[in-house]
């Protein structure tokens, strides 16, 4: 039976059962990863000379790198917000009954989904101006981090559009028929009956794309956006660009992303499993 499982899932969501699902071992894995990376860093420091200075450099520059990481998070959240709004719009166009709306939307969706993110990033960075001139004479500056955010939003937007189309298709036709029998228009049916049921199906893949998006934000370092990776590289330069700095600094970056993304991935898996029991 489909519905009881759904009710159960909703009840558990309300109880906060999903959060309880993040068991102790998940936390343990995260801590272990941190410990291993620090140990590895310490080992490198021990074998390759000037140990105190490399670790000291990491500690010195950690706040600077963390500030960069804050920008990664800001870009990921902003890009996801843009991708969600535009992706839902594009997805709704994809399920339109009018071919003139549906076919272009389908084309754009597939184009965005099937292009390398790096190519989209290059295109956006080089095609967008550094500022937008308003007719009134005002100017909106477009810093590189904003352009990069838009670039990361585009492929995710295509994928969210496709998530929506898929979720709508999976709603049993009986839902459409009974709504039609009750004199709902197509728009009302979508709004009150179909889309609310799509949300739960769409959330796990949506979270998955958020994780992927966040993991892609370091690509912005190519354009010297001051995010975590860029700042880490600048820190290493400033600390003398010694090879023994590489491992601790990059391991630190890995840990930062891991600690943030891993719980999201675990939560997504939990939701997927919950919604898969139907």
């Amino acid at each position: 039976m489909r519905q009881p499982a759904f009710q159960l899932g909703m009840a558990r969501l309300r109880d906060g059962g999903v959060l309880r699902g993040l068991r102790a071992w998940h936390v343990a894995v995260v801590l272990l990863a941190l410990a291993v990376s620090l140990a590895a860093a310490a080992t490198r420091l021990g074998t390759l000379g000037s140990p105190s200075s490399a670790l000291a450099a990491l500690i010195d520059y950690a706040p600077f790198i963390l500030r960069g990481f804050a920008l990664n998070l800001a870009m990921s959240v902003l890009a996801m917000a843009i991708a969600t709004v535009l992706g839902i719009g594009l997805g709704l166009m994809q399920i339109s009954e009018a071919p003139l709306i549906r076919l272009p939307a389908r084309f754009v969706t597939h184009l965005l989904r099937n292009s390398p993110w790096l190519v989209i990033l290059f295109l956006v960075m080089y095609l967008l101006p550094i500022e937008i001139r308003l007719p009134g004479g005002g100017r909106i500056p477009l810093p590189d981090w904003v352009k990069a955010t838009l670039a990361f939003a585009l492929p995710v937007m295509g994928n969210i559009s496709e998530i929506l189309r898929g979720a709508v298709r999976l709603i049993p036709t009986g839902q459409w028929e009974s709504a039609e029998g009750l004199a709902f228009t197509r728009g009302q049916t979508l709004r009150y009956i179909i889309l609310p049921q799509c949300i739960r199906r769409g959330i796990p893949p949506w979270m998955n794309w958020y994780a992927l998006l966040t993991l892609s934000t370091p690509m912005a370092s190519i354009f010297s956006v001051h995010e975590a990776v860029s700042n880490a590289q600048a820190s290493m330069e400033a600390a003398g660009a010694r090879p023994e700095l590489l491992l601790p600094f990059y391991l630190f970056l890995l840990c930062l992303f891991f600690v943030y993304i891993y719980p999201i991935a675990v939560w997504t898996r939990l939701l997927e499993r919950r919604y898969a029991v139907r």
Partner: protein
Amino acid sequence: MLFADPIAAGPAAIPQDRRALVSLRDVRKSYGAFEVLKGISLDVGKGEVACIIGPSGSGKSTLIRCINGLSPIQDGSITVDGQEVNDPKLDKLSLRRKVGIVFQQYNLFPHKTVLENVMLAPLKVLREPRAQVEERALSLIAKVRLTGKERAYPGELSGGQQQRVAIARSLAMRPEVMLFDEVTAALDPETVKEVLATIRELAAEGMTCILVTHEMGFAREVAHHVYFTDGGVIVEDGPPDRIFREAQDPRTRQFLSQVL
């Protein structure tokens, strides 16, 4: 009228006004090259209960879906209360407000409670005030004997309970005719009775009903008129006593001997 005391068994007397509420004339429908309905004509008067019986694949469900325009027809005409269903200029909203339909698979909205399921269409489609809709919804839920289940979700109810919610949801639009498409076919034998009791009450109160059903005993009990369809045509029709006791056509007799 809607909430009159239920009358016991037996078809209610048909009102004097025998003007056809639903009228089909030579209706033809095909899926590709396959012709499902090969010229169906029938009239259902106000307050009349019509049962359509026949073997699977004889086009019964298609026929009932054509009446409220869920399924377009290729030829012929269907009128409901004088409105031509397949007129492209027809206001589908006004047609569907008059015609309620209940499906085999209930098709309740799983993300809404029982009360919300019943209230949604009057609120959003008819845009009636909430207090008024809620009052009517609660009395309809009481009518289908589900008082106490207003806050339950469809997934928490048995099939028979879900089907009664579906009936209440349809009645909330205050239709003039109700279509029932094999509404007990997916139910356990014990819950079939609850649903049939609800339909029996509706029929006794004078609701015009068109039922596609496999419940022969029920058809015989509540119907004013029975139509036997096979191969996309009406083979034979008449009052239930005549059809069930002295069917003329060998196909009808053969079908009835298999199911009775």
